[in-house]
């Protein structure tokens, strides 16, 4: 099986879908000749032409809005927003338009499109490039929110996303783009939405995360292991649909839960995880669901990233506190 990085897995999925389905097309900023600022679409314009892999004008709302129109015409658009932070420029076309397209038309039209966007901190990016705003899209119903954390998952979830008849926001953790290689099947496979992945098992505490925070939790779990604390790491994979059963199962097994995310604490998706677990598994809990998140502050400048983002030390401390309680 080939070894791929996460960004290679994304590219592989895009290539397979462009080959398989002539309706699929990619549109975004600099995705053509440059192959995208992270090279996720490298070589695809050369293979599929400038009509199917399209360099767009610098206008995020038009990229998303045009995707709706292309979908009506029968295409399956996969739009790249250069960084998730710049979905804000298209926000009015995402929640209120993409997310409501089927409802507004009473099922006459659907929006089988994917919006891909790299995001996440820890690589000293300029302002906005690191913003983890996934929770905002969970509050706009009608959209599925997919957050892969590994090369294998990135490919399988992206193939699923492109084939899913509903609109999908597909967030790619840029810090993990080239961090690891993993065996990834060369051919097609899909990973169903709404099924969390148990990254490792342990009876003492569950660490819940998604996207790059999963990698953080793995490191924290390894350290906790050294201290004699056995942690389950649960990767949600998709926030919408949410694997409520998976959460309840893990919480029930360990009785202690820590949720970890890169977004600010207040109204982050960790709040939803905590609220759901305590609603569904209250009497199985030994103590509160704890949250480790970024502070309620905007993403800071590069020199301060390390003291803003959740760290292994903070996850470990929270897990220890949970086990003690």
């Amino acid at each position, binding site marked *: 099986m080939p070894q791929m990085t996460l960004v290679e897995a994304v590219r592989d999925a895009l290539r397979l879908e462009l080959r398989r389905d002539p309706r699929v097309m990619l549109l975004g900023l600099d995705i053509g000749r440059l192959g995208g600022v992270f090279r996720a679409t490298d070589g695809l314009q050369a293979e599929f032409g400038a009509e199917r892999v399209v360099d767009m004008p610098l206008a995020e709302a*038009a990229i998303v*809005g045009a995707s709706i129109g*292309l979908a009506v*015409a029968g295409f399956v658009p996969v739009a790249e927003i250069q960084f998730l932070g710049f979905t804000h420029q298209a926000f009015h*076309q995402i929640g*209120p338009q993409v997310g409501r397209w089927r409802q507004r*038309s009473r099922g006459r039209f659907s929006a089988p499109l994917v919006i891909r966007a790299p995001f996440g901190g820890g690589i000293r990016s300029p302002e906005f490039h690191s913003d983890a705003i996934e929770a905002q899209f969970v509050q706009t119903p009608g959209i599925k929110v997919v957050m892969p954390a590994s090369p294998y998952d990135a490919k399988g979830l992206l193939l699923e996303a492109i084939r899913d008849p509903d609109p999908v926001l597909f967030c790619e953790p840029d810090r993990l783009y080239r961090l690891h290689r993993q065996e990834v099947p060369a051919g097609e496979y899909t990973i169903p939405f709404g099924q969390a992945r148990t990254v490792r098992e342990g009876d003492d505490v569950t660490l819940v995360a998604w996207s790059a925070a999963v990698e953080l939790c793995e490191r924290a779990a390894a350290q906790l292991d050294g201290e004699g604390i056995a942690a389950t790491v649960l990767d949600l994979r998709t926030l919408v649909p949410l694997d409520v059963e998976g959460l309840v199962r893990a919480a029930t097994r360990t009785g202690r839960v820590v949720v970890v995310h890169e977004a600010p604490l207040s109204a982050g998706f960790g709040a939803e995880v905590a609220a759901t677990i305590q609603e569904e598994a209250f009497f199985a809990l030994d103590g509160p669901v704890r949250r480790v998140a970024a502070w309620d502050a905007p993403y800071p400048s590069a020199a301060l990233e390390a003291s803003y983002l959740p760290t292994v030390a903070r996850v470990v401390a929270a897990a220890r506190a949970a086990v003690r309680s």
Partner: protein
Amino acid sequence: MTASPRRLAVLSMTGRLRRGQRPSLDDAQVREGLELMLLSRLFDARATTLQRLGRWGVHSPVEGQEAAVVGACLAVDPGRDWLVPQYREFPAYIHHGMPLAGIAAFFTGHPAQGRIPDGVRMLPIQVAIAAQLPHAAGLAWGLRRQGGGAVVLAYCGDGATSEGDFHEACNLAGRMQAPVVFLVQNNGWAISTPRSLQSATPSLALRALGYGFPGVRVDGNDLLAVHQATATAVARARAGEGPTLIEADTYRYSFHNTTDNPAAYADPVELAAARRQDPIERVRRYLTQRGAWDPAREAAVRERLTATLDAAVNAAARLPPPGPDECFDDIYARPPARLLRQRAGHGAPSEA
């Protein structure tokens, strides 16, 4: 600075062809247009009454703008072309194949409101100002890629031209040589905001230069002028030559919608002047002078239209009330388990 472009006009106030102008529609077609305009005005009155009675929801009348709406939609082919509405284009929906009963259902607030029958090439009406324009650009771009010469007619208002979406859509359409006609109904108002406070430009049609395609200004109360400009733009688009922006100058006679109070801001003198340019009256005179219309015919048409309208209104009123579950319908093709559970229990987990 470039002056405002010349305003295309075909009919005089008294319904005569202006010097050097020829009609782009034959008499039967103009009659079809007049009937749509008459239906529109009947519908405005009915919808307003029903809203006042609490039976229908908010309505934005077309009154005064019938030529701008109808002149444009007569230039596209419902069997082939797409219509992208804002919300103030009732007769265009009818012309494009939308059943009157469906529109009536919309106004009762019934969830079936947005359902456009399969095969009717029209997008749902759009409440978010200008948000439909990027859809129109993308749709037209997609149609161009498919070949076949289909064209998109997209409507918006003068207010809409101030939104970022207007700009991004026009620029994209120009860049993609997308076969789309942007029809701006400049009705003088965005709710209470006059056109003069919307932009310092002498004409919104000038915007097109900045996107690399033609901008045209027409007398929007002149059915034949609007049709001619749109037909030219449609031919251009079909030939692969890209978009056109048309500014149709007209005037909103009535309130912005049934919640509005124009007495607070509108100028009665200006309104009276606009009413003297009535777009329906002009077409009526034109056809009458050509012997293609008379009071008897009008009376018959009105009777027929009123009956049609009655039937649609009654059908909508007879719709069974929606089931409480219907707010879960048509959100996703493959709904998340959590939503299905909410539907099944009709309660959040807490309430189960």
